[in-house]
């Protein structure tokens, strides 16, 4: 392994600009003549708009214009869409209500934008926004997914009965039922997967500019997938044809899913910039972000696990209601269906699985993919069921898992996925050693002496990443293919630019992708640069989410590099006056087999461009290749996390005293970066389990609407983590990569709740397990259990 090649903990190329304050995030970009957009937002969760009067606002100092939804409609700006079709059990398509960028007749959640003020400064814009008079007829609201389908619940979108978007299912209901009928033991759980606010630290922003001379629009935005944004804004919103719209996502300060989606503000800024012939910038306040960023999770589930007398799992069934909020966000429909129910087999050989999912509208912010997207929800269901079943059967939780692990591959689950490689016992075994599970009983006794309860919780998770084979997702309803592209441009001097359709917002692609290229071409790491995030530079790509950049994005680069090598060999053959078939390439050098003739990669590159050694008839000059890589399967990262927790009996406050994570990510390009991804994921999962929760009042006001009320994990809430790896290569891609971006967030909530419930001796505990919640659970538990 070279110091900068695959497997090396290379320090990141991108860091210099960030640690010196020279990152360029969207709000840092300034265009001449720039104006600022301030949105007028609904204070009501559900209301008819009777009238909007913008005259007073227009007369305010610094105001350029005030625009409304009526004008948006007049200008034929189309609605935002959800791009993944789900069909209900009865075959009917999902019911997607119109989502205009500015509401014209009705608002459906607090924060719904009804008008936009374009002003010289943000201060002036805010002053004027207060002067926009909106007359509302307030309607009653529904925020709880369990109540959304009830008779008499407020109807959110006309024509969509019972606020029900779809009633979907997966698996064999009859066979599952039969398996349950034969079971010796059934474990049942009611689970709420709490609603989360992604809260990437950089708030969303958009800056739009119109060039009247060329009729071109440019959008700088905080996007994880600028090409998809362009496609949707061009093809569905109808803002401008794709070739007249450039989308640039510069440095992006975290995404976690929330910046995949196409949002109203981007559409409005583009529209206003063209209308007013001035650049228009909008930067979200954190309070606005709480109301308008797509939230995550928000499931209510009843789940059951059937087992035989030997602790062998026979079947699993689940009924879930998923809250999608007021509108269907870009990928919202896929999250509680194909990203969720398909993972309900966990790491286990479960003969029968049946899952029903109802997706509903409520008067809350839209809900879409958030780190893990569906898979954390599935893992929570499976790993809570398994843990509780073990406790009920008086089996060691590890033993029950071991008895049921999938042990031979490939393994077809009853819920679509075909696991191709893994060794689940290996990661659990290693995790148990690292966590010193053997010594736990002693530590528990020790803690009891100090008035503390100690608990241990496992989570043996699996996820499907490397999203995804286009044909497969197409058959499941995706509106796009989920391949990835790469273009490798070799410069005449031998340095290389790689253009990728992936987008980094913390993942370090500039480093890991360069490691791959430098190793493969045998050129210095510093001679490689990665270009991403600009639709004018990169032709097309699907962006970064679903831990897909390694498995799919890097595979595309490998394919393009294969082509580069093939072409370069042709050039070398002319240079070295040998047959193409005799040219070998190794460590950056082309040699002729059996001779001492050689040419360095740089020399070959130069020859490809000067083209002195071959005629145009023999070979095209230049050295640049493109590849579109479509994966042949999902990848299946899996592992085992173990959480050890200590609880203050008097206050209910829990402290994580030890965290062990052993993950199998397949090939690891840069262990430093991979560990960092794991750390961050665990922190988000611990956040979900212990402290985070978006809470709406019955009237639809977001009660946890700022960092004053929405608890973000801070440094003192977390321990240092013990992270280890096992490795089985992913057979479906050339590098054997599985992906690591979401694992931590997927694994950790179940580990935390399993640990707390172990400590307090009752399973009745909802997330977030705040000190108050744990204390209350302890009060409910019998004294024997609490002792």
């Amino acid at each position, binding site marked *: 392994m070279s110091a900068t090649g695959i497997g090396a903990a290379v320090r990141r190329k991108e860091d210099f600009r960030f640690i010196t304050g020279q990152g360029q995030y969207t709000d840092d970009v300034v265009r001449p003549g720039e104006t600022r957009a301030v949105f007028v937002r609904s204070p009501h969760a559900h209301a008819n708009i009777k009238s909007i009067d913008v005259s007073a606002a227009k007369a305010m100092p610094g105001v350029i214009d005030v625009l409304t939804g009526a004008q948006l409609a007049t200008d034929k700006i189309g609605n935002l869409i959800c791009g993944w079709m789900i069909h209900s059990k009865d075959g009917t398509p999902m019911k997607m209500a119109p989502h205009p960028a500015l509401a014209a007749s009705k608002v459906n959640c607090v924060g719904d934008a009804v008008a936009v003020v374009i002003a010289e400064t943000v*201060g002036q814009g*805010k*002053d004027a926004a*207060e002067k926009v008079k909106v007359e509302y007829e307030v309607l009653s609201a529904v925020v709880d997914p369990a109540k959304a389908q009830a008779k008499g619940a407020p109807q959110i979108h006309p024509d969509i009965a019972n606020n029900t978007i779809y009633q979907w299912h997966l698996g064999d209901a009859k066979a599952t039922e039969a398996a349950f009928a034969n079971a010796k033991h059934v474990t049942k759980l009611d689970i709420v997967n709490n609603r989360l606010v992604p809260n990437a630290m950089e708030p969303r922003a958009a800056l739009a500019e119109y060039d009247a001379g060329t009729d071109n629009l440019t959008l700088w935005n905080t996007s994880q997938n600028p090409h998809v944004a362009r496609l949707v804004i061009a093809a569905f919103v109808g803002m401008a044809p794709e070739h007249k719209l450039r989308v640039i996502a510069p440095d992006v300060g975290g995404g976690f899913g929330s910046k995949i989606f196409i949002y109203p503000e981007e559409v409005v800024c583009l529209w206003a910039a063209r209308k007013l012939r001035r650049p228009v910038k909008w930067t979200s306040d954190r*309070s606005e972000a709480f109301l308008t960023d797509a939230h995550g999770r928000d499931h209510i589930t009843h789940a059951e696990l059937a087992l035989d007398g030997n602790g062998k799992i026979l079947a699993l069934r689940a009924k879930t209601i998923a809250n999608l909020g007021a509108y269907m966000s870009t990928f919202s429909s896929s999250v509680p269906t194909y990203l969720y129910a398909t993972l309900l087999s966990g790491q286990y050989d479960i003969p029968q699985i049946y899952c029903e999912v109802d997706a509903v509208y409520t008067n809350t912010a839209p809900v879409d993919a958030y780190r893990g997207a569906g898979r954390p929800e599935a893992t929570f269901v499976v790993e809570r069921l398994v843990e509780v079943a073990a406790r009920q059967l008086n089996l060691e939780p590890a033993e029950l898992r071991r008895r049921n692990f999938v042990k031979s591959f490939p393994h077809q689950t009853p819920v679509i996925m075909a696991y191709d490689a893994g060794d689940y016992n290996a990661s659990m075994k290693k995790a148990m050693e690292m966590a010193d599970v053997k010594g736990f009983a002693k530590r528990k006794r020790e803690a009891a002496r100090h008035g503390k309860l100690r608990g241990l919780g496992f989570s043996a998770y699996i996820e499907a990443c490397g999203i995804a084979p286009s044909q497969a997702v197409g058959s499941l309803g995706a509106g796009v293919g989920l391949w990835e592209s790469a273009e490798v441009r070799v410069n005449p001097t031998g340095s290389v630019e790689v253009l990728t359709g992936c987008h980094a917002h913390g993942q370090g692609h500039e480093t890991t992708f360069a490691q791959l290229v430098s190793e493969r071409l045998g050129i210095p790491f510093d001679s490689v640069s990665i270009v991403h995030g600009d639709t004018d530079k990169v032709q097309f790509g699907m962006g970064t989410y679903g831990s897909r950049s390694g498995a799919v994005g890097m595979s595309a680069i490998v394919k393009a590099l294969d082509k580069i090598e093939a072409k370069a060999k042709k050039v070398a053959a002319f240079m070295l006056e040998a047959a193409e078939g005799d040219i070998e390439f190794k460590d950056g050098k082309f040699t002729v087999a059996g001779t001492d003739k050689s040419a360095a990669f740089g020399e070959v590159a130069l020859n490809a461009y000067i083209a002195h050694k071959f005629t145009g008839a023999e070979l095209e000059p230049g050295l640049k290749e493109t590849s579109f890589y479509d994966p042949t399967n999902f990848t299946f990262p899996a592992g085992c996390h173990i959480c050890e927790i200590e609880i203050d009996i*008097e*206050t*209910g*406050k829990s402290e994580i005293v030890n965290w062990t994570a052993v993950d199998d990510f397949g090939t690891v390009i840069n262990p430093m970066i991979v560990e960092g991804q794991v750390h961050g994921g665990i922190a988000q999962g611990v956040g979900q389990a212990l*402290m985070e*929760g978006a*809470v709406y009042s019955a009237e639809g006001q977001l*009660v*946890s609407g700022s*960092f*004053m*009320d*929405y*608890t*973000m994990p801070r440094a003192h809430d977390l321990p240092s983590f013990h992270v280890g790896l096992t490795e089985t290569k992913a057979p479906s891609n050339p590098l054997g990569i599985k992906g690591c971006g979401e694992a931590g967030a997927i694994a950790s909530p179940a580990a935390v709740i399993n640990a707390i419930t172990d400590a307090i001796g009752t399973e009745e505990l909802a997330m977030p397990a*705040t*000190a*108050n919640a744990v*204390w*209350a659970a302890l009060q409910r538990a019998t004294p024997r259990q609490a002792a």
Partner: protein
Amino acid sequence: MYNFTFHRPTTVRQAAGLLARNPDAKLLAGGHSLIPVMKQRLASPAALVDLGLVEGIVGVELKGRSVSIGAMTRHADVANSPVLKEVMPALASVPGSIGDPQVRNRGTIGGSIANNDPNADYPAACLGLGATIITNKRRIAADDFFTGMFSTALEEGEIIVRVSFPVAKKAGYEKFKHPASGFALVGVFVSKRGPDIRVAVTGAGANGVFRVPSFEEALKKRFSPKSIEGLTIPASGMNADIHASAEYRAHLVGVLARRALVKATA
């Protein structure tokens, strides 16, 4: 934030004059309560009178049997005051627990007390020690000063210049942090100075900081955590929100009072 005019007096008298002349004026101390609410447009003073350059209202001094703290003394400077750490570390621990280091670097005792946030820490210390709030006009006993959530006995144009804390031999503060904001979800300050025993609670009460007579009574027999073992306060009148139920807050009052007593009697 709405716009305003900005003034920087250098004496208390000038500041008082500016307040008198500008009807909708507000004092600005560390700004760590006022600026956030102005940013949310929940406060809209027409003028700000910045106390940042005003002389003579900064510092911690031992004056006989009391500690006198200038209104503009920052939380960090009170927390780190060698005098205070020596004579009454329990009081130093109060600003030491406020918010985060950056907040402690700017926020002031005068601003905190004038603001009387129901979850703020200093009000518990003032009430728990029987402090005297000294303004440009008069001296106000802590027992009379805090009159409810975000409300105090301060009159229009009145400026806190100093707070005087009697030195208590035994004192302790225990805080259970609000998980999101870092303020006190519940905080309890206990003290004993001769026969004067005080138990003051912040964060829990629907009307802001309050004393717990039943605990104080029980502690008269013996100032020890044992004396209030098993004692609770009723949940009625406690705050309830998404972070803590009234029952939980009432329960924490007992737990934290005992823990504060452990510190005070250590």
